């Protein structure tokens, strides 16, 4: 149970950071020249109408009063109106978020499924073909920006061979599954719609892989080096001298401790994906939260920008806490250490 109190503590701590961040963005946005009411109504609206909207949006009050109104709205479900969709930002976010969560989850699965075996194989057989492949991959993954990967994938696998669709979440001639979670693949499975499932997975592959390539490279490299490190440890030596089969050593005793540093970096990478998704969703015209956020940014829609940053921050916090819990599960020593610290 102790790890839960630890998580709650972290949550409270991060909440304070996020509050600070909201003040920062709010202040930067509000002290800048430019009248949000004028921006919303356009240059032709009469001054009296603009004044009325200013009054309604509390724009004549000092910044700290405005901030208080905004904060109260956040907790009561009134996130303000996004000027470019003319809807409550909360409704917009809940509409667009599932598509992005689905994309990031897919990228996360691809990342783990490819990187862990690759790193394990590379570490087990140092200087083999796999090992050298991982080394090259790790440099490619670091040096090629995700938006370049996306463009290359579109060029070769989309335009060139027509193996994968170029844009969107689902083909136009396929009816999206009935909305339950908003994740097309999950909804299709829940409603028993194999056609929609296959089609949305098919649409997910390129954008998810574009997001995942960088993290795959990073995780494979870290997995490799921690496998190499653990191969030298006494426990491995004793397993070998007891004559345990190589397979058992690799998958039962070598994998678990090697996963700890890998999972830590993995989680950081996954939680940072919400930012990378801004570019990937633009390239693949993915109707998600990040594309919404980018539209808000390009049209300077303050309510929506602040909300997008906050939601991304909350997701970042949750991912980091989850990691702490998983790492604590993988390594009892870390769990114990936390207990003694408290």
């Amino acid at each position, binding site marked *: 149970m102790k790890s839960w109190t630890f998580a709650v503590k972290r949550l409270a701590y*991060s909440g*304070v*950071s*996020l509050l*600070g*961040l909201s003040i*920062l*963005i709010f202040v*930067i*946005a509000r002290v*800048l020249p430019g009248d949000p009411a004028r921006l919303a109504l356009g240059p032709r609206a009469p001054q009296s109408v603009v004044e009325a909207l200013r009054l309604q949006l509390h724009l004549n009050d000092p910044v700290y009063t405005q901030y208080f109104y905004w904060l109260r709205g956040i907790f009561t479900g009134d996130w303000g109106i996004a000027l470019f969709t003319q809807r409550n930002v909360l409704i917009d976010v809940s509409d667009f978020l599932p598509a992005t969560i689905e994309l990031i989850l897919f990228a996360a699965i691809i990342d783990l499924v490819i990187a862990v075996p690759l790193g394990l194989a590379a570490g087990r057989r140092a200087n083999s073909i796999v090992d050298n492949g991982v080394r090259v991959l790790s*440099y490619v993954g*670091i*040096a*090629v*920006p995700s*938006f*370049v990967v996306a*463009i*290359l994938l*579109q*060029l070769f696998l989309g*335009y*060139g061979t027509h193996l994968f669709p170029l844009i969107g979440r689902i083909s136009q001639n396929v009816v999206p599954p009935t909305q339950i979670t908003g994740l097309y693949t999950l909804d299709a499975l829940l409603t028993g719609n194999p056609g929609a499932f296959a089609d949305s997975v098919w649409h997910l592959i390129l954008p998810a892989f574009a997001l995942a390539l960088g993290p795959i490279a990073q995780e494979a490299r870290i997995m490799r080096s921690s496998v190499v490190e653990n191969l030298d440890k006494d426990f491995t030596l004793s397993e070998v001298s007891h004559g345990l089969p190589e397979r058992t050593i690799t998958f039962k005793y070598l994998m678990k401790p090697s996963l700890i540093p890998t999972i830590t970096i993995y989680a950081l990478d996954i*939680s*940072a994906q*919400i*930012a*990378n998704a*801004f*570019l990937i969703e*633009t*390239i693949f015209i993915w109707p998600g939260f990040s594309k919404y956020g*980018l539209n*808000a*940014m*390009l049209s*300077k829609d*303050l309510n929506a*920008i602040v909300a*997008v*940053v906050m939601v*991304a*921050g909350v997701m*970042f*916090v949750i991912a980091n806490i989850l990691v702490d819990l998983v790492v604590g599960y993988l390594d009892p020593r870390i769990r114990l250490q936390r207990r003694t610290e408290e």
Partner: protein
Amino acid sequence: MKSSRTLREVYGRYWYKFSKNDLSIVGLACIAGVVLIALLAQWISPYPASAGLYVNFGNAGAAPSASHIFGTDQNGRDILSRVFFGFRYSLMLVAVVLSVTVAPGVVLGLVAGYYVNRWFSAVIMRLADIFVAVPPLLLALSVASVLTPSAINAMLAVSLAWWPWYTRLVYSSASSIRNEDFVRAAELVGASRWHIMFKEILPNNLGSVLTKVTLDCGWVILIGASLSFVGLGAQAPTPDLGTMIAEGSAYLPGQWWISIFPALAIVVVILGFNLLGDGINDMFASGVA
């Protein structure tokens, strides 16, 4: 460092450790080449006019050829020349961002780490926490978006997202080094606080800071390119690699050269900085002096 060993010998050892790995040399060569090209862009570009507002629609979207090795873009500008000038902007971004973030970040971390029990240490570190509460790219995007999009504001936005990482790096090591015997000894003989922070504690962090600086060069370029890719960075007609990729992607797949060559250029720069950074990391990994 013992005084019996000359400075020349010490540098020689560093260079030996650095040059043992061929990849470090490749990285150094890449970056030296890019810096040279950026400095000499005006003179070595085949068509220097292409860096500006020049248009030549008669020759727009021409495929790579002997006269235009990388082809021409949608306005008929020579892409090779624009890539050369694009290096300038990328390197300038790195230079500005790191020169305005590293020093304040390090000093704040040093102060917060040495005075770890005082109230302002907590203030500094909580302030740093605020700036790392979201991924750096997202913070930079949101700050750049509320400002007017321009090269300078993009630099400002990236800088705001950058300093806390140095503060945290130096803080964590300074707060433990302050308990070492040599710091206690300096305190006992009455050394000033500035002496202790900058002459006793800081030198122990220089290796890790320098390694982070070189590895960060690649990251800063990546984030800067991402900002320009979505239109929140340098504005037209500035030859910026991220903007060039974004504009060129509209002409895929037919005129692939408009976006692919700038993309390759950016890969070379980021790869170069990473190889160089790894080399410097190895150099400091275990003490040489």
